[in-house]
């Protein structure tokens, strides 16, 4: 089993550190580019969503990446968050709208929904965790 984790600051400036964590994970995880790219994208989208939308939150964000059976499992935990599931509570995005009606908001979560195989959310005592599963086969 491959597992890496880190606590990172809750600002956009920490994104390179988040991506370095993914790089360290994929250096030893038995997963190819077809898994790596969606996992990196989902990690970025959820992390930036937390940073942008939970502005009152304090403290670090915890990120865990691990393999479990045939899955890569990504957990992102905010220890100071109101109950808000960014994936289930976000409105759907209509990707068939003409250009002049398109908005970029919501596109990141839309991609996460499309690219991950399973998404779970838990919240208790102001601690919210989003767990994403991506199959490696």
């Amino acid at each position, binding site marked *: 089993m491959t597992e890496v984790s880190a606590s990172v600051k809750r600002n956009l400036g920490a994104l390179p550190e988040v991506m370095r964590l993914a790089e360290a994970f994929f250096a030893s995880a038995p997963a190819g580019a077809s898994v790596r790219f969606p996992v990196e*994208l989902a990690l970025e*989208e959820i992390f930036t969503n937390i940073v942008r939308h939970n502005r009152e939150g304090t403290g670090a964000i915890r990120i865990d990446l691990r393999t479990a059976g045939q899955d890569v499992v990504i957990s992102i935990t905010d220890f100071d968050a109101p109950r808000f599931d960014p994936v289930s509570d976000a409105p759907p995005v209509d990707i068939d709208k003409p250009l002049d009606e398109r908005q970029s908001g919501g596109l990141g979560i839309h991609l996460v929904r499309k690219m991950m195989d399973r998404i779970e959310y838990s919240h208790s005592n102001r601690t919210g965790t989003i767990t994403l599963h991506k199959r490696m086969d």
Partner: protein
Amino acid sequence: MFDIVVGEHEIILTGRLDAAEAEKARGIFLSLEDAKVVDFGRLEYISSAGLGVLLAAQKKLVDRGKGLRLINVRGHIRDVFHLSGFDQIFDIG
């Protein structure tokens, strides 16, 4: 690492266009006055932050009867464009 080189007719993107780099790209794309070809052949990664920059630039240019043409869009980046419906609002080829 992300790099953007603007030529007379072509923009070449290299590396990773993520949320940390999107502002650099936004400044350049939103200052475009004319149609351009954007070469994705050396781009390794794009997230919604980069897609937002492309969308804003395309809206501005199409309003003036112009637009971006995207070339060498392959692999994962093509998948992201398809899942976002961007293949319907950009000239890709």
